[in-house]
């Protein structure tokens, strides 16, 4: 039996998952109370010694831990090329995308979870048609320019319209809204689009024809494809393209589990903490796919660093490296001359508080045993004695 009273003493000192492990194994070995205490003491000791010490260069350790396996990944990538499934950015390109915090990612995707499983295929299809963007070009069977009257004739694909449950009036309205300077009407089963220009020339009409083809008719703009995927027992929809706000407005969509792989979209909709989680999940997904094991702590550390300002900062010269206080540290990362010239123009001071700049000028770095002079500062901010 496990002595819960004893366990309680260690709560807060030793993390919960470790205690749970202990709980599991202690019953297996049938330990008595004294033995349990012994194990827990040992556990606490081990935990305390494995904590990161003040002055440990965790940044460098993280960089190394990422650098080594991702080099391996680049070498291996080409052997894995040509794997089916939807076209998604994978491997090193995706990792760079995440850590550079690119605003425009190559393959934005949404994982749409549903509140309840669709009963049949028709319901599923109806849902997909609500999400997937349908343009005019997807539902027409003919589009031509009538040179005599200088207008565009559109013949719609009736059976397709029926499948997608779109009424002709809706199409008419959608075209009208999509562009200024046109007038849409219906005649003998054809949609007539008349340009409203002062001077109607043939090239202008052709230009309108091309534009009108892209008119948004139904669904959510930017979602080019929606695929139902079975994961465990749940049916989820993978959507190519990201537009979380609009997807969440659909009643059948579960707003507590639906996610996007676009980090900036996640900040906008769910806030900075959700974005942090997205960075962690997306990068571990890439690493797991490639069979690389990087400790979760390293990934969490980078994600924390990228989100400390409340917005997303990439690991680039305009992101977290650009925020460094020291001129020399910034200069040693990328574009050194630009940094040094700008610093000298504005008369910046380098306080030599950190690592890189001290290495550059050949001084001991404030790490490990070099750190204490910083820790023992006697005055608190505002001059209050401590």
């Amino acid at each position: 039996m496990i002595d819960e009273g004893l366990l309680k003493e260690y709560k807060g000192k030793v993390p919960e998952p470790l205690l749970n492990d202990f709980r599991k194994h202690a019953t297996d070995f049938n330990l008595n109370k004294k033995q349990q205490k012994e194990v827990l003491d040992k556990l606490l000791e081990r935990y305390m010694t494995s904590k990161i010490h003040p002055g440990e260069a965790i940044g460098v350790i993280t960089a190394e831990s990422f650098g080594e396996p991702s080099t391996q990944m680049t070498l291996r990538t080409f052997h894995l090329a040509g794997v089916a499934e939807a076209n998604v950015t994978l491997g090193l390109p995706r990792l760079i995308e995440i850590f550079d915090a690119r605003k425009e990612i190559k393959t934005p995707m949404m994982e749409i979870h549903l509140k309840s499983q669709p009963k049949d295929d028709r319901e599923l299809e109806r849902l997909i048609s609500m999400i997937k963007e349908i343009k005019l070009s997807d539902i027409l069977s003919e589009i031509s320019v009538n040179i005599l009257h200088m207008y565009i004739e559109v013949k719609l694909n009736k059976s397709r319209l029926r499948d997608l449950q779109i009424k002709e009036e809706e199409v008419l309205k959608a075209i009208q809204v999509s562009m200024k300077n046109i007038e849409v009407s219906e005649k003998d089963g054809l949609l007539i689009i008349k340009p409203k220009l002062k001077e109607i020339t043939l090239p202008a009409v052709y230009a309108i024809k091309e534009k009108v083809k892209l008119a948004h008719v139904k669904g959510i703009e930017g979602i080019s494809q929606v695929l139902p995927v079975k994961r465990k027992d749940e049916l989820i929809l993978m959507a190519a393209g990201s537009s979380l706000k609009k997807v969440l407005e659909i009643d059948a969509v579960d707003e507590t589990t639906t996610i996007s792989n676009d980090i900036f979209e996640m900040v906008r909709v769910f806030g900075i903490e959700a974005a942090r989680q997205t960075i962690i999940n997306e990068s571990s997904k890439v690493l797991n796919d490639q069979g690389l094991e990087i400790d979760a702590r390293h990934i969490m550390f980078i994600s924390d660093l990228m989100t400390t300002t409340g917005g997303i900062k990439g690991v680039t010269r305009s992101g977290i490296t650009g925020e460094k206080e020291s001129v020399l540290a910034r200069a040693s990362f990328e574009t050194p001359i630009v940094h040094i010239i700008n610093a000298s123009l504005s008369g910046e001071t380098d306080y030599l508080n950190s690592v890189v700049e001290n290495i550059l000028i050949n001084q001991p770095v404030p790490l490990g045993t070099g750190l204490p002079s910083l820790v023992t500062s006697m005055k608190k901010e505002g001059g209050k004695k401590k």
Partner: protein
Amino acid sequence: MSEEINITKHIFVPKHTKLTEEEKEKILEEYNISLSQLPKISKNDPAIKELEVKKGDLIKIERKSPTIGKSIFYRVVVGNA
């Protein structure tokens, strides 16, 4: 179309709570730091929309962590990120 979506229930959004002034002072004292040294959160962040925060408030965030179960994180509210 449903009304405003409540994002605080999302699996990726941990619990955010606003700390009182006393709690805030206690934490700054405990870690011996000033507000400017803490991580930040924009006052327009969707996750703290309903907490009615102002600049300089301290937000306590209870995350689920794969390594230590529950971890507590603090963020200071700033004007704009």
